[in-house]
């Protein structure tokens, strides 16, 4: 099952600042929906644990993330792969940055491929849930970029959130 989403927003930060933020696992990782914890392997690899819950299927998904593209200051892309009881997920999150008068326009694309029994027992719920969670991540990203403070202080305010629709 594929869920594809995209959109754009503007923030009052320079493209370089936005790029630095997006490509720093310590800043980006906690923005993932229902973030629980993370461990950073190196500058481009980290593993994040997020709460997952759809109806009676509840658990923790461990998602291995890799920063696969980093073209300062115009583009960043992450690829991730994770598993949870009943399913596996592959995801791609890409960000294209361009300078504007007020700061930076962030054009984002997200794609998740979900595999496994999860899709058949909860297939109808996954798409709206996926959309909601991606929107939550973008909202959190916008919020974090607007603030001057380090995103580490933002993360606790963002998670954990119940993920049931």
């Amino acid at each position: 099952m594929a869920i594809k989403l995209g959109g754009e927003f503007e923030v009052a930060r320079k493209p370089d600042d936005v790029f630095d933020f997006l490509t720093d696992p310590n800043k980006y990782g906690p923005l993932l929906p229902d973030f629980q914890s993370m461990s950073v392997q190196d500058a481009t690899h980290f593993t994040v644990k997020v709460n997952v819950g759809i109806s009676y299927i509840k658990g923790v998904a461990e998602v291995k993330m890799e920063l696969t593209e980093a073209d300062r200051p115009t583009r960043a892309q992450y690829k991730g792969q994770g598993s949870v009881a009943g399913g596996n997920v592959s995801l791609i999150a890409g960000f294209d940055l361009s300078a504007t008068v007020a700061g930076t326009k962030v054009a984002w694309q997200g794609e998740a491929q979900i595999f496994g029994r999860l899709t058949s027992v909860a297939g109808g719920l996954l798409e709206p849930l996926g959309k909601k969670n991606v929107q939550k991540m973008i909202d959190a990203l916008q919020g974090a970029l607007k603030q001057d403070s380090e995103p580490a202080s933002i993360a606790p305010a963002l998670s954990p959130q119940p993920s049931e629709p």
Partner: protein
Amino acid sequence: MSTKTESKNWVGQSLPRKEEDRLLRGRGKFADDVKLREMLYLRFVRSPYAHAKIVSIDTSAAEALPGVVCTLTGKEIEPYTQPFIEIAPEPGGKIRDFPLAISKVRYQGEPVVAVAAESPSLADDAAELVQVEYEALDPVVDGEEALTDRSILHEEAGTNKIWRGVFEYGDVEKAFKEAAHVVSIDRLHFHRFSSTPLENNVVIGQWDRKDERIHYWCNNSFPSFAIQFLAGHLNVHIDRIRVETFDIGGSFGIKITSYPQMSICALASKKAGGRPVKWVETRSEHMTSSAHGNERTFRDTRVALDKDGVITAIASRHIDDCGAYPRYEPLGCVIWSQVFPGVYRFKNARIDFSQAVTNKCPVGPNRGYSRMQHLWFLERLVDICAHELGIPADEMRLRNYIRPEEMPYTTPNGCVYDSGNYPKMMEVAKSLIGWDEWKKKQEAARKEGRLLGIGIGTTLDSGTNNFGQSQIINPGAPFSGNSQGANCKLDIYGEVVVAVGSCPQGQGHETTSAQVVADVLNISPDMITVRTGFDTDRNVHTGFSGTYASQFAVSGLSAVHGAAQKLKGEMKRLAAFVLVSKEDDIEFGSGAQGPELRSKSNGKSINYWGLANIVNVNSAVLPEELYEITLNCRYIWRAPFAVPDKVKKYGKLTLTYASQLHIAVVEIEQGTYIPRILDYVAVDDCGTVINPGIVEGQVYGATAHGIGAALLESCVYDAVGNMLTSTFSDYTPITAVNMPKVKYGHIETRSPFTYSGAKGMGEGGAAPVHTISAALQDAVFSKGIIIQDSFNNADTMFRALEGKEIYQAGPLVKVEHRA
């Protein structure tokens, strides 16, 4: 005690089923009822991906869990086993199929790891601890796309095309050249659905290390086929495999292909030191990974017709999707040709048939296997042509039907239809449904803007395969003909005991076998014990024994009849000696001391106990010339088949052809677009009816199955191979709640090819799928819509009527009228 109507045989009477008492009181014995000492429970870790490489498997956490006895992986079993036999020649024959995935997975739900533990819940918990890392590959979920080899499933085969063959008969080009009308249909599609037996697959396997014998207690419905696959795979002599089956809660063909799970239970047992290992399939496992019915796409179809709408030729290209592994395939690539022209008289045809593997659950024989797809295709052609040419659907069929006076009828590919009277069936069906009244109601409904259609579906249920057709697929295949075994004996105390090589799943074999033997011995069926279930150690099976392909009334009962006749001969000979009489004077019947044999000439009699006593425990009185009498008679019935012509694809592929004609009145509900069945008739002809009650029950069952398939049941996959209908909430199998009232009728045209005149039945040829498609076509043709799929529910009707993106007649159908 059952009573026989004066001057009538037991065969033909609607006796209550002998099985009923046991089953209705909950005293049936099923495979899951088998509990053995030190039994372990098996759980599979299954692939979440439709297509992926296996990067790594870590079973250490599962093995460390207390109560877990062993795990198995594909890599672990590969050195000790052979890949399962492939029926296909190369390239399909190169496929290496093992019961656990080795280096890659090819469908969602494919078993990757097996865990055996002391309890089912421990096995569940342990399975969740197994870590499998995958690298996702590009999946292919469409048969046509698979043929492009964009993403190859089996690298060793080098292609996804498992088999291709062209079936051509008559002079197709000439027929098209001379046609008055040519109708071209771009694409038709028969959807993937399955069976949902009440009882899922169950296997208990024990590899006894003391005598190196494997014992299975299971509900496989074609065990003699399974052991042929398992013996080579497990590197054991076939005699070292014992299979026992019991009462089976439905199979519909789907349980034929449980041999991979049988393999794993045996291998786990071996690893566990010979402890028995039980696997009970969950419903979701059954839906995702047991077996589905074949999905088929029909492309570039052309139909030639004369000025009266008589079909003179068809040409088409068919693509069959067999899922990830061809486990009973590619037999389906030839089995459809048992009904090559359906019930129609055209002589010229060319079908270019291909089969592809896709990243979906492997297919298996499913009630109406392979033939229903083709019969649906033919019925769509007839129906579309009728509408396009403005010929009423009933009239169109009558102009094209094979006529009763042409029976036995040889088809263009050499099959011989034994008997049938399709016009008569239509007459009975029209009378039962009130055809003329419904036509008037339809006219009135149309004036009100309601979409109400009346559809006819005529279909064939070919029974008793000639397995020689496998040589059309693979000239090197070692199968031909068909046979079935039975044993009939007088036990030591004179009890009549019958054993057959079938494994009934609700077809009433216990009752019908007793009816046949009762007629031979002139006693009541109540006096006969029929051993049900299959057991290799009873030694009554052949390589074709099992229950499948609408054949028991022919193969099973012919074997039972033969064994009973053999026993009767021995009894008569023995009685003549004991009663000092001529054999011709010996009569069979019942007396004061139960069933007996009596001499007409001197009035002396001996009961069965007395007769059995002489052979078994009082044998010193026997003269030497009677030593060969055992009163334990094994008979193997062989079907009268020759090997078909492999090059011309010509020959008798099946022995009998039961037929069904259904009529449905369907209305597409305004607002909801739900197709509602307003009236339904099913007329059946299976030749001589052995037990009318059982036949009627089978007709209702097959009708329910087909209505479910037509309107409710579809195996849906998304673009990456996730099965979206793995629960009953999504698959929505038909139940009594949404089953319409069915009016039943029957005619009898005796088969000249069977001793009793009976024809195998029970599959129903998916008649409701054809019939409901035809009724919906009738309802929406005026809207410019063509029914091009066999599955039609509210959603497809909404898209057809409101979206029309793929249903418009214009792009799908072109009609060329010639002067």
